[in-house]
């Protein structure tokens, strides 16, 4: 991550990092900065869906009527639109995250390093298989 900011608390006695002054809108200056910030902000939607899932479990525990009201609320236009945006943001998170797996996961077979495309591909395959399992369980009725 190229944008780690020194918190300044560990600099005592050491030369301080030079920080180039940047305008507050630095991330709007070019496409790479903008995509970086969009990627980082997808975490808001990841957190949002985690909270929504917790809320849904709670509704499920409150009985059939309360749960039906919860699902009905999810189907309201505003909520459905939010789910649509959440899906797009989380897909962007998924693609950027899985594309980074080769830099983090290093597997060697003998002297040979398993190529990046194979590692990323395996993670994409895992996503497809797991999605299939979840869909299969939930579509049982």
């Amino acid at each position, binding site marked *: 991550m190229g944008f780690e900011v020194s918190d300044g608390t560990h600099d005592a006695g050491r030369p301080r990092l030079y920080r180039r002054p940047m305008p507050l809108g630095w991330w709007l200056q070019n496409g790479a900065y903008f995509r970086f910030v969009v990627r980082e902000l997808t*975490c808001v939607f990841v957190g949002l869906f*985690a909270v*929504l899932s917790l809320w849904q479990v709670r509704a499920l*525990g409150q009985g059939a009527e309360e749960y039906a009201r919860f699902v009905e609320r999810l189907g309201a236009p505003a909520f*459905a639109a939010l789910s649509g945006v959440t899906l797009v943001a989380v897909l962007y998170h*998924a693609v950027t995250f899985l594309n980074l797996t080769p830099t983090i996961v290093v597997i060697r077979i003998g002297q040979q390093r398993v190529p990046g495309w194979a590692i990323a591909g395996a993670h994409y395959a*895992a996503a497809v298989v797991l999605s299939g399992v979840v869909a299969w369980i939930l579509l049982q009725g």
Partner: protein
Amino acid sequence: MARNPTPLMWTLFGAGGMLSALLFPIHIFLLGLAFPLGWLEGPSYESLHALVTHPITRLYLFAFISLPLFHWAHRFRYTINDLFQLKQGTGIVAGICYGAALVGTFTAAYTLWTLS
């Protein structure tokens, strides 16, 4: 707790990022869109209730809720620092973010433990 919490926080960030990358899209599509909007027929209350109260599903949902909250906390913390170029107050931002993830984790544990 280790003296430097950063490796632990990064590990939780990575685990939550991986879990949400692999599993969130299908959950959002089915439970957030397809079932509420009637594109597909969702499970009945009884079968969903039986599924979610199963011990394995409870554990699954605990990880499903908790780890992505730590993913959010870690990433959001640094995004706030970078977006606003904070020189002070980064400790407060970190405390609020990780604290919120902890509160969510305890709430999830309690909710799933007492779910009947």
